[in-house]
């Protein structure tokens, strides 16, 4: 399955399992979503279970929270992660707080899906990676898959989770892996081991990172599209680096990260979001706090620049394998 198909399958499986699950969002109904993730679901399950929403992201999240408080498990789509910001207050001040402030009387078991990240020439408002904003909000979980198998299993786990989950889907991976070489032919998921996706129910637990490549000399922390870029970058560097796919930022699998850096003594963090105050800062701080005496060189961050995502300069902005390889060489030199 492609990642789109895997996500669709997750939703299909869950709609079939639990009548309290329903889906809504802009264009997700009859049309099946601008990225086709909800394709066919309205037809199969009926309009009340998969329907179009007015263009009001704050309203979508508010409505979902109310439904969650009633006892449903709404799964909503925000058409692009860039457009989640009008709903930021509903997420941070309401969804994330409801359980705490009501002493557990109410909670918001909602899943907020959004296509995310760049690499498709979407320009400054269809390319962003806002994960750091959510990770800083106590009470939200943030999940980012990097392949079809994880996408399905993590989405199922997110839907089953009784906490609000922000589920960011790297849109550049929807139809195939992407290693950061735009000059090469587009690849599809066909034949990729992680594209072997069971038809039925399974889940991938939130909070467990995956070691995508084990290595001895340095640790690379990445998630989403950057997992594929990291693989390419590691190969180009010739360095025996261990690659960890975080899969969820909150909860974060700190044990896997610590074990790896304590083994390798070197760490490079790779993300597409702009650097300053990005999630890489938290990773860097954590690794430094917990592995200080194991570190043989400074932890480096390879990230998008501190500018908006510029249309013409997509590949200058995008932190590609060459930049990761350079950083890996630098941490090895020091």
């Amino acid at each position: 399955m492609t990642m789109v198909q895997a996500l669709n399958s997750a939703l299909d499986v869950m709609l079939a399992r639990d009548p309290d699950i329903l889906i809504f969002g802009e264009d997700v109904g009859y049309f099946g979503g601008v990225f086709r993730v909800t394709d066919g679901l309205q037809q199969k399950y009926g309009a009340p279970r998969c329907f179009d929403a007015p263009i009001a992201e704050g309203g979508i999240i508010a409505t979902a929270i109310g439904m969650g408080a009633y006892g449903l498990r709404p799964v909503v789509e925000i058409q692009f992660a860039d457009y989640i910001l009008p709903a930021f207050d509903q997420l941070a001040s309401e969804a994330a707080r409801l359980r705490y402030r009501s002493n557990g009387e109410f909670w918001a078991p909602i899943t907020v899906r959004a296509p995310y990240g760049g690499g498709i020439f979407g320009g400054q408002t269809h390319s962003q990676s806002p994960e750091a904003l959510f990770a800083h909000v106590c009470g939200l979980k943030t999940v980012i898959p990097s392949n079809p198998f994880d996408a399905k299993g993590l989405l199922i786990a997110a839907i089953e989770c009784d906490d609000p989950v922000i589920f960011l889907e790297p849109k550049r991976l929807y139809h195939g892996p992407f290693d950061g070489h735009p000059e090469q032919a587009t690849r599809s998921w066909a034949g990729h081991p992680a594209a072997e996706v069971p038809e039925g129910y399974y889940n991938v637990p939130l909070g467990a990172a995956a070691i995508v490549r084990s290595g001895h000399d340095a640790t690379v922390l990445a998630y989403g599209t950057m997992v594929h870029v990291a693989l390419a970058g590691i190969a180009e560097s010739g360095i025996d680096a261990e690659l960890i796919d975080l899969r969820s930022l909150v909860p974060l699998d700190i044990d896997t990260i610590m074990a790896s850096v304590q083994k390798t003594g070197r760490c490079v963090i790779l993300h597409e979001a702009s650097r300053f105050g990005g999630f890489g800062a938290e990773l860097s701080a954590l690794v430094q706090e917990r592995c200080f005496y194991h570190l043989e060189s400074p932890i480096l961050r390879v990230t998008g620049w501190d500018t908006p995502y510029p249309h013409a300069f997509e590949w200058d902005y995008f932190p590609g394998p060459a930049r990761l390889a350079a950083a890996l060489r630098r941490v090895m030199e020091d």
Partner: protein
Amino acid sequence: MSGRLPLQLHIPMPLSRPGQSPRFDHINLSAAGEVRRPDPCTPEREVRDLPQLLVRVLDDAGRAVGPWNPVLPDGILMQALRAMMQTRIFEDRMFRAHRQGKTSFFMKSTGEEAIGVAQALALAPDDMCFPTYRVQGWLIARGYPLVDMMNQVYSNAHDPLKGRQLPVMYSARDYGFYSLSGNLGNRFGHAVGWAMASAYKGDHRIALGIVGEGTTAEGGFHEAMTFASVYRAPVILAVTNNQWAISSYAGIAGAEETTFAAKATGYGMPGLRVDGNDVLAVWAATCWAAERARQNCGPSLIEFLTYRAAGHSTSDDPTRYRPADEAAHWPLGDPIARLKQHLIIQGLWSEARHVQLEAELQDEVRAVQKEAEAIGTLGQSKPPLDEMFEDVFKEADWRLIEQRRELGL
């Protein structure tokens, strides 16, 4: 273009400020009984005049008149009177408790008690109210333990919200009272979603969302109205127009231009404008909208016209921005006094019995306060400290576990 007058920026200003005489001539009132009562399922286009009128039942003499008179059993009226009086007494005591340093903050609903109380009694037990901080009367009318309200206000060891919330920000699921919070208006949309969920399940429960008139300016108000209208959610959306939003008069929210009930028109939703200081009118309008919702005819917006007789909160001094005696000039009077008058002319009540009930309720609240203060006031008694780390998530992750440990727990 030459020869034209230059443009000018218009800044709305209230008719009177401190030192001036209170004026309410800008507020259009209908006579009690004057406004027709259409069938609750009437399409919006046939009731488009209602937002400019004022649904009233009690006239100035205290008689219940006209088509909106709900003709309630005496028992219900007595219950409402008692709940309104108790609310006022409770709030007065808690306000004083704040002045005595027993808590950090408090808010009163003086003059607006009819709204929460009548709604609480008119709706079904399993309906859900998405409240503001100015409907403590709902909880009192529904018999939520006063001592738990006080424990919440004191954030003490028995605080049902474990010390996590500012005073007054109650949550009481079993009493149909959704978790309150400071962020204005954010829960209006939750009411719509909750109502949609009830419809999705084929249940009978409806939701009531409430915001102040100042809060209608928030984008979330509009989004909630839009979703309610589009999906014909079984929800009552209420605006309590108490003329003030802290120091800003209602004109800053748009009252110079039209009524708040008129906002319904843009969504094809009926809008009622209702005397909020008249328990019977509040009751009748709430039932009308509830009936509409339960018959799958969709949402309504109700503007309750009322007046915030007290300051905004314990942090506020309203004499800085409005005439000190403005409340006394409010044309719709005081809701307790008006219901009392009605009951007296009906022969159901007397000044003497009123005085007696007042004394009884005072004693009751005083006793409860003693009980709460025996547990402790703010800072003198606390829920267990590890409650700080609970309920951030359903299950704490390593960060919270480590941080709890850092604090020595």
